[in-house]
Every structure is written in C-alpha cells, then in structure tokens.
C-alpha cells in the first residue's frame, strides 16, 4: 500500500496499545496524528473498486490495442504490424458497418430533437403532461432484446404493420428483409425505445431553467418557436450537449441487442454496426485480433465524434 513507507517512529509509538475511543479523539486532531489503520482506511475503502476497474476496464483497453497488432490463426501472437487494420478496411462488412455509423451521425439531430421538442411541450404543460412523462419513458427500461422481439412480431412481412399499411392502400414493406430499409427500421425502433431517456434528461434540465425568463417572453407575446429558439435552447446548452453525447454513445454501443434479435446483421450485411462486427469476428469467426482492431477503430470513432460534438456545441453556445 502506498502509505506504508511514510511512517515516522514517533507516530508508530503513539499507536501502540489498544486504541480507545477517547485516545483516538485526542490524537485525531489532524491526518498526521491518526493511527496507521486510520490512514490506510481510505485506501482500503477504495481498493476493491479501484482494483476491479483497473483490472477489468483499463487494463483490457491497453491489452486490446496491443492485441490488434498481432495475428489470428496461424500467426497467433506474432506481430503483424498494421495487417489487421488493412484487412479491416478491405472487408465489405466492416465498411458497411462504418457507413451505418455515418448514417447514425446523420440521424442524430432527429434523435435529439424529438425528445427535446416533447420535453418542451411537457414543460409548457400541454394537457396531460404528467401522464406523457411516465408513458414515454417506459420503453427505455425494457431490454433491447424484448423490444426487438416485439418488433419482430410487428414488422414481420405478414405482420400487423403491413396489415395497417394495407388498409390505407400502401404496399407491404419488407421492413427487416430489404437491405435499403432494414437499417432505418432498426434505428427507428432504437429511437422509439430510447427517446424517453433523453426526454427525462431534458426535463431535468428544464427544472434548472429560470421560469421567469419564459414568462417574460410570453408576456412580450413571443411565439412558441421564438421562445424555443431564444430562451430555451440557450438556457439548456449544457443539457443539450449531454444529450447529444449520450445519445450518440447509445447509438454506437447499445444497439447490439436489437441487431442480434431483429436482423442478425442482415440482410446482406446491411445492418452491421462496429459493435456487431466485433462480436461476429470474435465469437463466430474466431478472429479476435481482427476484432480487436475493429474495437480500436470504434474507440477512436467515439473519441472523435464526442470531441467534435462538444467543440461544435461550444462554438454554437458562444455565438448566442
């Protein structure tokens, strides 16, 4: 333990003998006067958490990056330089998954605007606002696996969604079987399932907003869009930033369950995301080193996206 070496003989002498409460109280004037056990206490309290985080979260990150420069199969353990990364960017599946990341980035404003707008309405006390909050949030607590299973039923080719479309004369859509549509269907379900989460965060942000500003704008006869644009958005810049970053992280890292249940990456690999690709290469294809390279790329993508968004929002906030 780090402090064990910084003992002075005087303090050690003070510590001998049973420590009664009264003695402790007298000697406990400052950190220096405490017993050894007392000075070690913070480290003992932190140790389990620190060890688990270090061993199972921080260390694997380094290990994985290292691992991505070694080979799979016959070349197991050998250094192969950038071969895995080269293989990655020649793999159509991985390229498809990166293309889908681009799609997610494009859809991000939608995924943030919907809960933002709904939260605004709830904040402005739309009739029934109390109910909406708990109803909207509900799907956010369900497992993606359960949501995926339910939407498998709803979006089946001969399922209710198409039956509904049929009644208004629109042809059946192969929601999960058409490579041009499947990804949108899955992202749509993801947004449906998670907008309540962002909504609750927005509402918490609204609670910190100065209500008198909005009242003043109302008295001045400002229209709703103007109130949103000039009062609410600037006042919530921090919350918006938080929602943008967490929504993006959510899109990049919590769609595995949906993909696994709804499409399995298909049709024709059109619904691959990096996380699904990593799992596929590691678990199904037995190519852990290649999967590690994909992990490293995903990590970089997340860093870049996160930092870029924060930078953009900072600038937007300053202009206001």
């Amino acid at each position, binding site marked *: 333990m780090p402090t064990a070496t910084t003992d002075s003989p005087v303090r050690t002498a003070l510590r001998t003998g049973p420590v009664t409460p009264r003695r402790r109280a007298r000697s406990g004037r400052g950190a220096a006067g405490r017993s050894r056990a007392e000075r070690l206490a*913070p480290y003992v309290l*932190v140790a389990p958490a620190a060890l688990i985080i270090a061993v199972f979260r921080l260390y694997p990150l380094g290990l994985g990056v290292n691992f991505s420069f070694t080979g799979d199969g016959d070349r197991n353990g050998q250094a192969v330089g950038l071969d895995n990364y080269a293989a990655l960017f020649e793999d159509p599946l991985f390229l498809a998954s990166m293309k889908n990341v681009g799609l997610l980035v494009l859809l991000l404003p939608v995924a943030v605007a919907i809960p933002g707008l709904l939260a605004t309405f709830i904040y402005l006390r739309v009739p029934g606002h109390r109910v909406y909050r708990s109803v909207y949030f*509900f799907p956010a607590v369900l497992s993606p696996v359960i949501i995926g299973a339910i939407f498998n*039923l709803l979006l089946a080719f001969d399922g209710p969604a198409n039956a509904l479309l049929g009644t208004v004369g629109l042809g059946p859509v192969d929601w999960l079987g058409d490579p041009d549509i499947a990804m949108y269907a899955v992202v749509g379900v993801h947004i449906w399932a998670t907008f309540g989460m962002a909504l609750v965060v927005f509402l918490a942000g609204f609670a910190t907003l100065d209500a008198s500003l909005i009242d003043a704008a109302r008295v001045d006869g400002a229209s709703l869009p103007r109130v949103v644009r000039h009062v609410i958005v600037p006042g919530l810049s921090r919350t918006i930033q*938080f929602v943008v970053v967490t929504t993006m992280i959510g899109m990049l890292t919590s769609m595995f369950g949906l993909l696994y249940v709804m499409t399995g990456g298909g049709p024709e690999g059109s619904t691959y995301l990096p996380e699904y690709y990593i799992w596929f290469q590691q678990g199904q294809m037995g190519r852990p080193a290649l999967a590690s390279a994909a992990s490293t790329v995903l990590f970089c993508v997340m860093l870049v996206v996160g930092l870029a968004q924060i930078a953009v929002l900072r600038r937007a906030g300053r202009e206001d």
Partner: protein
Amino acid sequence: MNALRAGRWLAAIPMAALAIATVYPLVFTANVAMKTRHEYVLDRFAPAEGLRWDAFATAWASADMGRYLANSLIVVGGAVALLLLFGSMAGFALSQLRFRGSRALYLACLAALFIPFQVIMVPLARTMGQAGLVDTYPGLILAYTAQFLPFTVFLMTSYYSGIPAEIVDAARIDGNSAYGVYGRIMLPLGRPALLSVGILNALFCWNDVLIALLLMPSAEHRTLMVGVTSLRGQYSADIPTFAGGVLIAALPVLVLYLCFQRQIATGVTAGSTKG
C-alpha cells in the same frame, strides 16, 4: 399568450398519438399471447376471446424459462450487491476522506466510464477464459460489476459530497473509525442514492445480452434475456407462445418500473445538470 395556449392544445394531439404508439406494441403483444394460434392467424388485431394463460404456461414450462430466470436473479443479485458495496465504499472515501492519490483515482474512474464494453470485450473474454471464469456465475457477476462500477462510484461520490463534513467530523469525535463512519453514518444516509443506483444497475444487468452471450455460452447458464433470443427459433410457428415468453421476461422490469419510476429517473438524470 393565446397563441401559446392554442399551440399547447395543438401539441397535445401528436403527443397523445405518440403515447399510444409507445404503449401499443406491448398491448398488442399481450393480446397476441392471449389468443390461440388459430385466432392469431385469422385476425391479429381483434381482442382475444378471453383471458387465456396457456401461452404463458407453455412458454414457462417448455422454454426452460424458470432456469433462465434463476440464473438472471443470481447474477443480477450478486452484481448489484457488489456494486453497491464497492461503489459506496469508494464514493465515501473519494468524497469525504482526504488522501494522496484520491484525485487521480477519481479521474481514472471517470475515464473508465467512457470505455464502452465493445472496445474491451475481446481482451476481457480472453482474460476471463485464462482465469477459468467463463461460463461461471462469479465470472459474469464480476464482469457486470466491472462494467457498471465507474458509473456507480461516480454517482455515489457526487451524492456523498453533498453530505456536510461536520457530520463526519462529529462522528469521528464520538470515536468512530473511518469504517465506523462508513457503516454507521454513510450507509444509512446514502439510502436514497443506493436505492436509485441499485435499481438502475439491476435494470442494466438484467437487460444486458452482449456480456451474457460472450461470457455465459452454455445453455444451462443462460440468463433470461439470452433465453428470450432463442425463443424465436423455438416458436416461429407458434406466435402466441412466443409473445407469452417475451412478456414473462418483460414482467419483472414492468413491475420494477411501476414501483420505482422516480428513482429510475433520478439515476438517469444524475450528472446531466452538473456536467
């Protein structure tokens, strides 16, 4: 003023529609589970002819859901207990005790918060395999604990920093050691935060499928969510039973949500306003 009021009523319409769209998929699934296969094929939307629980019973018995449920309860219970214990210990130390390296430890914890599981899953699976922890309860419990510990420590630290230092000092003068302060003061005072973070962690662990798929490959150790993923192949021709199985798996979360809605919302929003 008037425009705003009119706007409010106008907004209420799409909002109500959205609320229906949010609830309907679940209602639809429940309705399907009450139907016979024949009824379902004839008309998907019509209300079931009566309350039939056959589909639930069939799914429960033939899909081995009891075993999956037990596995989930063991793993989630173990992970949440460890998370609350280690998270509150570390949160107390990081917020109320001064010691060398506390800032660095806190920052390391914060950094770990931003490492997604997908990024470390390959080396983690390998390390777990070498340690003989794959396909064991302790292995999955440890993986969940590691996954959600940064978040738990972060929340407990910010909650405990709101407790005045005078309370800790007073307890010290009364002769409590740091451990005594933790056990007698911090644990009881932290109850609201522990409840909130505990429920949230239970949800996260319960809902996970990726970590469980990776670390619990054998059929007998499947968690409930992994079990649900295999339902579809099993009952592709028997949609009502499939729907029943899905609903059984959703039920515990439904109950948890109805009881602890406020705590869940508190946990989700923590950290959003403070940045």
